[in-house]
């Protein structure tokens, strides 16, 4: 079974083609990473996968719901009930404390009593190492903390599919390694599927089961997909100059 199926997806903004004809599959229960240089369209891809942006062409299926095309609206609503998303900026609700941020989905979609909600939210914040900061407002925390709180909020309802946009950017190596361990732990214990956007080479090699790599100059006039598969094999075997540049820092002259 595949959690996500992307076929022939193209995104254009005005005259610019951000990427063309991207196709890949994410299998159930794997950690899948979207790689690529800054500005190659990773966040754009993620926005399409979570139903915030309709691709110019192509079809996307997430957890069995088709979210593109004419009947896409229904699929998007059904899919959004089953996924968690962490945005690149964290996107925490500025008028609520971290605890209230994580409690919001619990309040709306579960019948837990208030102290039960608070206990679950505290535990989720503790998992990302923010157990001490539950009473702070988003304006009072650092960028790395906002990301981790965003992950805790995305995990609030224990969704089977989690999307994380650059979870480890801006984190110190220790916190970043702890986050990697959390992701692998959730994959192994709960069978959670992850789609992670990242540039951190160490993190990719540690967590990714498979990956897709986007590049701004995949085509002469457009960006696109240049490789996919097991990142360790790509590192060792790929002959594509940009893939080699990414994994081995061999910059083509």
């Amino acid at each position, binding site marked *: 079974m595949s959690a996500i199926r992307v076929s022939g997806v193209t995104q254009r*903004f005005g*005259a610019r083609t951000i990427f063309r004809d991207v196709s890949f599959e994410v299998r159930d229960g794997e950690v899948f990473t979207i790689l690529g240089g800054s500005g190659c369209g990773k966040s754009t891809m993620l926005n399409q996968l979570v139903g915030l942006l309709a691709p110019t062409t192509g079809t996307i299926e997430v957890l069995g719901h088709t979210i593109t095309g004419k009947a896409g609206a229904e699929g998007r*609503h059904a899919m959004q*009930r089953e996924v968690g998303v962490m945005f690149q900026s964290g*996107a925490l*609700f500025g008028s609520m404390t971290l605890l209230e941020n994580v409690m919001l989905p619990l309040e709306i979609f579960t019948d837990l009593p208030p102290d039960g909600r608070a206990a679950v939210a505290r535990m989720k914040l503790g998992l990302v190492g923010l157990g001490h900061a539950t009473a702070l407002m988003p304006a009072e925390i650092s960028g790395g903390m906002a990301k981790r709180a965003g992950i805790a909020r995305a995990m609030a309802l224990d969704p089977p599919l989690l999307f994380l946009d650059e979870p480890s950017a801006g984190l110190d190596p220790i916190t970043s390694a702890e986050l990697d361990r959390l992701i692998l732990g959730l994959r192994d214990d709960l069978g959670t599927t992850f789609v992670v956007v990242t540039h951190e080479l160490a993190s990719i090699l540690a967590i990714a089961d498979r990956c897709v790599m986007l590049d701004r100059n995949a085509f002469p006039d457009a960006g696109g997909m240049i490789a996919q598969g097991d990142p360790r094999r790509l590192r060792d075997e790929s002959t594509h100059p940009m893939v080699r540049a990414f994994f081995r820092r061999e910059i083509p002259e």
Partner: protein
Amino acid sequence: MAVDLSGLVYCDLSGASLLLSMEAAHGAALPILGAVPHVTALLARARASVTPAGPRAATRSASPNLVRAVGDAIAYLGEVVCAVLFLPARRRMLRWPDLLRFADQAGVRAIPLIILLGYLMGLILAFQSAVPMRRFGADLYVANLVAISLLRELGPLLAAVILAGRTGSAFAAEIGSMKVNQEVDALVTMSIDPVTMLVLPRLMAAILVMPALALILDVAGLLGMTTVMTGFGYPLITIARQVQAAATPLDLFGGLFKGMCFGSAVAVISCFAGLNTGVGPRAVGQAATAAVVGGIVATIFLDGLFSILFYRLGL
């Protein structure tokens, strides 16, 4: 033509780019003579970094397409109606503390301003109309005139203008900064309806506070008028009788109902402006401006419609 750099001992990146732009103006690569090695390397690096500018992506805010704007507005109105209809199923998305906060922000905190402006308005109206009316010996009827115009027109209108300026802009800026910060996107991906969670409490607060604000403004205006009239030597009881004879409860309640409609228009429009905030730092300010302008225009437009309606109904 050639460039002779033999006297040049040091050149930085800006210097290199000046040399390159000279070359570009000339139209072809120029032979460089006598450059020291570090300058040659620097020029090569600067040359390699020159890439043709990509086409500018057309963003949504770049082309304000009228047809699409109207379509968006209609779709948004539909969403508001849906949010109201589906409210029983989504009642948990409406947070009551939010409603109280907005009612406080839009209503309670506006009261001093409402009293001040209402009082001054009554004062000015009474004084200005007393001068010509006195020539006909009709200055007693200033009380009638001010009472009618305040209760029927100016009370709700002025309250709505104050709501648009004070609260409409705040609604648009709050929702706009949530939009810029992707908080609205986060709501959508959490399958929380942004209209139910963000627009409905603001709309309900505006509907709730507007009759109260209009009533307070009416009372303050009548007090201002009374101040002028007592100055002219009329006893309070005469003024009160005059007001009572002129204004019916229908005038009052018609005015308060109008105020409610103006308030909902201001809230709906300012939330729309907020949800339509574009990208970039200027967008939030533009949304707030659009909210105030849109709110005031809609209020006056609605007021015109009400005038026709009330006239037809003989009210």
